[in-house]
């Protein structure tokens, strides 16, 4: 399903990724771990084609993701550290715009239901500029539920969340597994990585090592 081959990336001559290669089958969840600055976010951003790799290839469902054809990214969704939303828009406006960029339609009621589930319904018409980090993180979860991608690239899903939020992320990952969808999750918690990941990939010194989660 996803195949990453020989990805190299350096910043100002500092080599971050040195020939990263791995593959992922449908329904697999990869927990990507590593210390700060080892290139976890960089790798996700390269796969999502937000960042340019120095060399290497990424294919998703046999299609070259690094090519100019945007449609190849159709069933993939990247969620980074920031929410990727517009601060002057309300949650509902942001979510509607997100769905339009992916040619998806969703009724307003369904969006409201999801916002309610994540405890954001009281802020439905407020610009997200006033949201706390935790609320923005929950809004990312709503985005994921609405897009429901085949491959989710999620950078630090548990960041800034309260206890309820952590439970919601747990449920979301469980849903992904149940639906036989795939995800690459950047995690720092070994327990969570073992619990949800089919494989744990560790990034260190620009190289990746793989081990079974069980």
């Amino acid at each position, binding site marked *: 399903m996803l195949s990453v081959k020989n990805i190299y990336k350096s910043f100002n001559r500092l080599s971050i990724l040195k020939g990263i290669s791995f593959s992922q089958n449908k329904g697999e969840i990869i927990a990507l771990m590593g210390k700060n600055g080892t290139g976890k976010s960089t790798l996700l951003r390269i796969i999502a*084609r*937000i960042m340019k790799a120095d060399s290497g290839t990424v294919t998703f469902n046999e299609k070259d993701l690094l090519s100019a054809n945007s449609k190849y990214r159709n069933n993939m969704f990247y969620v980074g550290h920031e929410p990727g939303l*517009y601060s002057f*828009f309300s949650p509902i406006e942001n979510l509607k715009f997100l769905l339009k*960029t992916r040619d998806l339609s969703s009724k307003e009621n369904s969006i409201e239901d999801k916002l309610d589930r994540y405890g954001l319904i009281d802020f439905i018409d407020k610009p997200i500029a006033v949201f706390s980090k935790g609320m923005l993180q929950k809004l990312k979860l709503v985005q994921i539920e609405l897009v429901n991608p085949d491959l989710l690239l999620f950078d630090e899903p548990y960041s800034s969340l309260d206890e309820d939020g952590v439970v919601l992320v747990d449920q979301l990952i469980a849903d992904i597994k149940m639906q036989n969808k795939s995800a690459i999750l950047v995690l720092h918690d070994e327990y969570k990585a073992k619990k949800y990941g089919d494989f744990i990939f560790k990034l260190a010194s620009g190289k990746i090592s793989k081990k079974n989660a069980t």
Partner: protein
Amino acid sequence: MLLNLIKKELLIEFRSKQIILSMLIFGLAIILIFALSSNVSSEILSSYSPGMFWLMNLFIVVLGVHRSFAYEKEFDAFSLLVSAPINRGQIFLSKWISGFIFITTTQLIVIVPFFNLLLLDIPENLLLFILTSMLINLGMMAIANLVSGIVIRSNFSEILLPLLMFPLLSPLIIAATKISSAVINAHSYEVWNVWVLIVVSIVVLFGLAGYALFDFIVEE
């Protein structure tokens, strides 16, 4: 999709009012400085006025385009946009068209104080002045958005934007000054058509370049 992207640009501006308002205030401030500091005869002022008009536009375009891309950097919305399965050329087109709307709106407001405060006569053929200005605006916005797309990922985008943009905009500003001067002085079209052709070439060249290259230049 293009329509949705343009709607998004216009709605953000409708909410924030930051682009047009900042361009307006800056434009009016420049006009006031010109008006209060110029101590020359009306003939000399009149001959310099097209240059002053486009110099003012040069500065306000930097301000407007920078703001338009600053929205995208906030909360990293641009990453969501470029990772979405949409033709990135359409992102450029939406920025180009919305930028054109913003600069034209600003010009339509500042044009009256520009001529009034500098004690200049309103051009006899005001409609032609506005139409030619709109064509020039298309060229300015094509260049400005292409350059902004290149520098958006840089930490020094505020510095890089004018540094890269001013040299690229210079030929256009020269042509714009020649055209506006000819329109104000009611010269026949044969005298200034070459400048119009230059502007049209710039619009086509940078418009196509922006559409085709945006896919590659917006990646980090």
